């Protein structure tokens, strides 16, 4: 059993500033945050699917709902969360296969994940929401 006194001396350093993380770490915590966000907003996706297949009236209600500026903002956030989670997830699948695990490549692919998901959010956001 570990000595309590020894255990106490271990340094504790929680740096909660996301921007101080190395880029792969930033991708990692954003993967978790976007995943949590997607889980919390599943009901929005189901509501929209439900309404758009139920009747003409409910389809129109849903269409009016997604036209509201606040709803658009939420959907834009949802779109980013999906795209980041998708891009980072593809990166993790490659890491699982031992591809791109060296430091330089891992750093480069982190930049690609962040940049591509942000760029796609802008392009798809404009195409789908405006």
């Amino acid at each position, binding site marked *: 059993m570990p000595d309590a006194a020894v255990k106490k001396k271990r340094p504790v350093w929680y740096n909660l500033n996301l921007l101080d993380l190395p880029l792969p770490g930033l991708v990692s915590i954003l993967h978790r945050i976007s*995943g949590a966000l997607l889980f919390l907003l*599943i*009901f929005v996706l189901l509501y929209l*699917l439900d309404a758009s*297949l139920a009747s003409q009236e409910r389809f129109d209600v849903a269409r009016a709902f997604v036209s509201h500026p606040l709803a658009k903002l939420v959907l834009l956030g949802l779109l980013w969360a999906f795209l980041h989670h*998708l891009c980072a*997830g593809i990166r993790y*699948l490659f890491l699982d296969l031992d591809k791109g695990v060296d430091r330089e490549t891992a750093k480069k692919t982190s930049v690609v994940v962040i940049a591509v998901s942000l760029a796609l959010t802008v392009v798809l956001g404009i195409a789908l929401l405006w």
Partner: protein
Amino acid sequence: MVNRTVVGAHYGLTGWLAQRITAVLMVLYTLLIVAVFLFVRPGDFTACKALFGYGWMRIATLLFFVSLFAHAWVGVRDILMDYIKPTGLRLSLEVLVILALVSYGAWAAHILWRA
């Protein structure tokens, strides 16, 4: 006599693998949806209704939702294990998450197969 260990790496590995397999399935569905939106462009109620009238579209969508809920379960469980330390609270939250996901599954099936 039931001969199995209730602890061990095996259970974690199953979840880990399920998370990856469901991820790949959801990527495939995403590609399908992108293709549908590019080439079919269902813009109104009638078009949406017609699209989801196809059996393959219903089944593909249901498979997507089943993958999503299994995937979300592994991910949310990981998050709860990392941040919620009191066992009673964590168990309660896990039960809530499972109830939500199973209800979502029933809702999805209802949406897709309603007349």
